[in-house]
């Protein structure tokens, strides 16, 4: 709806932005094809394809007003068109083409960089409390004839930002699926008996399906499995467990892209590696001057560094030592890129802190796989070191470290942030009445609620016991109170299931903000005092620091 209210100019600007975001991928294809051509092994179709891609890039970039990209793409296109007859380019022409390719890549780079600067400044201009979750809403279709039960489930799921549409018949749900597919289908198991809740002919893709049933008999479960069900729950359903399953099944559980930093003095090589990895869905950044590594190291926070071993300013081994001297980067995998065959030299380089060697002539998909494996392992290791095993949130020490860093960053940029301390009310009573297993479920439930309702950039930790802490970046104290109060009200309405009956739990929170409190320690103490005031004031409330 809002799309139509925006002026054509605004909409064009938005389209331009997403077009720019797609440019690295487009240029990657061109670079890969160009490389084949320059290496003298193009197949007949490659040159044609290259011309086609360049033609499109030249046309579309011009239409979106990117004059520079347009110029470079169209002059390269003219150059390549001359090679359509299958000739291998002369060395001079090849040098010329490679220069033009570099200019094209650089012009794209400038656009992408400018775009990355622009949205973040706009993001902070929009109030933090509005709209922060709407675009993350996940659609669930619920097939259930019992209207009261359906609306109860829908309400509970809405606390976790799942948007539920209820359909009493399979026909109606199928109709809805023609215009929009949900992330997950929830269906009463009675629909499973009829051979699946969907006939399947009307739509090609059936989303993951979770069956709900009054009875947990083996027959019902079997029906659900045979109908292609991905999970099965008996009613009354525990909302925390259900959300857990929905998170795993819906696409939103997709991980953040891997962050790769390439340090390589040869521009073309660096660009090639970075784009190759980007094409594989990673977030890759590159650096041609190793002396400038400090900034991307702390700001981009790479999860793996690919490093050329021979660079004019300093060797890869020296650079690895520099990186390793900082405690925060002791465990980041460093992989040397080299054509080195001498095992002794390789070993010496590893002693300085490198983890592995990758041969520069490695096949592209092997490079991608090798990087993936290393980052995966690094993530697992880090999560053991940094995260609470029950909730998956950051540990006490890590959240304090983040607070110090973020306060420093906000001070340098003249920004703001809010810090909240959250404590579940009368948690001991939950444990005493319902047992620790149920208590753990409540803790997990709150951690999930915080993760769903806060922005991805907000930092959430478990402070210990039943206490949580949240750092909300670029957020004023007032906005933070507003946001957290919404979460508080949802949390208090969630019905938890215990062996001796259903119950509700609430939390209290205290909030302090920068720059009103200037140091991390002060912010921490002020938030703690506010939390105490919230408890003293009767609990189930959010109080800003006085």
């Amino acid at each position, binding site marked *: 709806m809002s799309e139509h209210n925006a002026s*054509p*100019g605004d*909409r*064009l600007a938005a*389209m331009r932005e997403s*077009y720019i975001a*797609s440019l690295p991928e487009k240029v990657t294809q061109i670079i890969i094809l160009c490389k084949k051509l320059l290496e003298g092994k193009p197949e007949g179709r490659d040159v044609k394809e290259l011309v*086609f891609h360049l*033609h*499109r890039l*030249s*046309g*579309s*970039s*011009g*239409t*979106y*007003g990117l004059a520079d990209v*347009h110029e470079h793409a*169209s002059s390269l*296109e*003219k150059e390549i*068109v001359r090679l359509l007859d299958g000739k291998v380019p002369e060395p001079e022409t090849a040098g010329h083409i490679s220069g033009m390719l570099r200019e094209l890549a650089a012009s794209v780079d400038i656009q992408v960089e400018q775009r990355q600067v622009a949205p973040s400044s706009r993001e902070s201009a929009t109030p933090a409390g509005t709209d922060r979750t709407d675009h993350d809403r996940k659609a669930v279709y619920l097939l259930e004839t019992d209207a009261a039960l359906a609306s109860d489930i829908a309400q509970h799921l809405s606390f976790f930002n799942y948007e539920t549409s209820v359909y009493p018949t399979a026909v109606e749900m199928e109709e809805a699926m023609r215009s929009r597919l949900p992330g997950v289908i929830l269906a009463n198991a009675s629909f499973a008996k009829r051979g699946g809740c969907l006939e399947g002919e009307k739509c090609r893709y059936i989303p993951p399906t979770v069956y709900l049933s009054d009875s947990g008999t083996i027959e019902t479960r079997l029906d659900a499995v045979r109908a292609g069900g991905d999970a099965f729950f008996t009613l009354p359903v525990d909302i925390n467990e259900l959300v857990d399953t929905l998170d795993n099944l819906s696409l939103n559980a997709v991980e953040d892209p891997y962050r790769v930093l390439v340090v390589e003095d040869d521009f073309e090589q660096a660009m090639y590696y970075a784009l190759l990895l980007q094409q594989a869905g990673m977030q890759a950044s590159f650096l041609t001057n190793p002396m400038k590594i400090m900034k991307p190291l702390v700001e981009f926070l790479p999860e793996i560094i690919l490093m050329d071993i021979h660079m004019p300013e300093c060797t890869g081994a020296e650079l690895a030592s520099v990186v390793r001297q900082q405690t925060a980067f002791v465990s980041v995998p460093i992989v040397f890129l080299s054509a080195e065959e001498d095992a002794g030299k390789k070993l010496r380089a590893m002693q300085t802190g490198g983890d592995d060697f990758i041969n520069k002539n490695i096949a592209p998909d092997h490079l991608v796989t090798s990087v993936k494996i290393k980052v995966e392992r690094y993530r697992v290791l880090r999560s053991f070191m940094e995260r609470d095993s029950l909730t998956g949130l950051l540990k006490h020490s890590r959240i304090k470290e983040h607070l110090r860093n973020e306060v420093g960053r906000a001070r340098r940029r003249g920004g703001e942030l809010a810090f909240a301390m959250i404590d579940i009310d009368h948690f001991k009573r939950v444990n005493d009445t319902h047992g620790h297993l149920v208590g753990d479920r409540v803790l997990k439930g709150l951690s999930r609620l915080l993760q769903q309702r806060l922005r991805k950039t907000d930092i959430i930790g478990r402070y210990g016991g039943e206490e949580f802490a949240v750092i909300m970046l670029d957020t004023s104290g007032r906005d933070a109170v507003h946001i957290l109060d919404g979460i508080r009200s949802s949390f208090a309405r969630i019905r938890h299931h215990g062996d001796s009956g259903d119950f509700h739990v609430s939390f209290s929170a205290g909030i302090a903000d920068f720059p009103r409190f200037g140091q991390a320690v002060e912010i921490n103490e002020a938030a703690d005092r506010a939390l105490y005031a919230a408890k003293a004031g009767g609990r189930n409330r959010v109080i800003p620091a006085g």
Partner: protein
Amino acid sequence: MESGGVNRILCIEDDPDIQAVLRLSLESVGGFEVRVIGSGFEAVAAAMEFTPDLILLDVMMPGMDGPVTLAKLRSETSLRRVPVVFMTAKIQPGEIDGYRRMDILDVIPKPFDPMTLPATIAEILGRGNVRT
């Protein structure tokens, strides 16, 4: 905007990035009713069904290019009189002159400016009316 009674425009353009801009430009800026298709192969069927007042046709498309698509359109009696405007990037000198000798109203060079494209079309149509 004086558009010579033109309400419906059929665009034949293979690049999705440009398709989106064309739609925005012609619908929101120009106020036309627009149908966009991605290849010359669909052109005749789409034109018969949509009955456009004008066809914007990209020249360089994979599979079936602009001139071939034009010939296909003209081979249908009911589409013989629908005005066609080519869109093309200037690749070779003289290329555009060659196109102008075909049975088309005009050639719009690419890249075009989405904010002024409707005005350009209106101007071409004004001239077209004088000619026929």
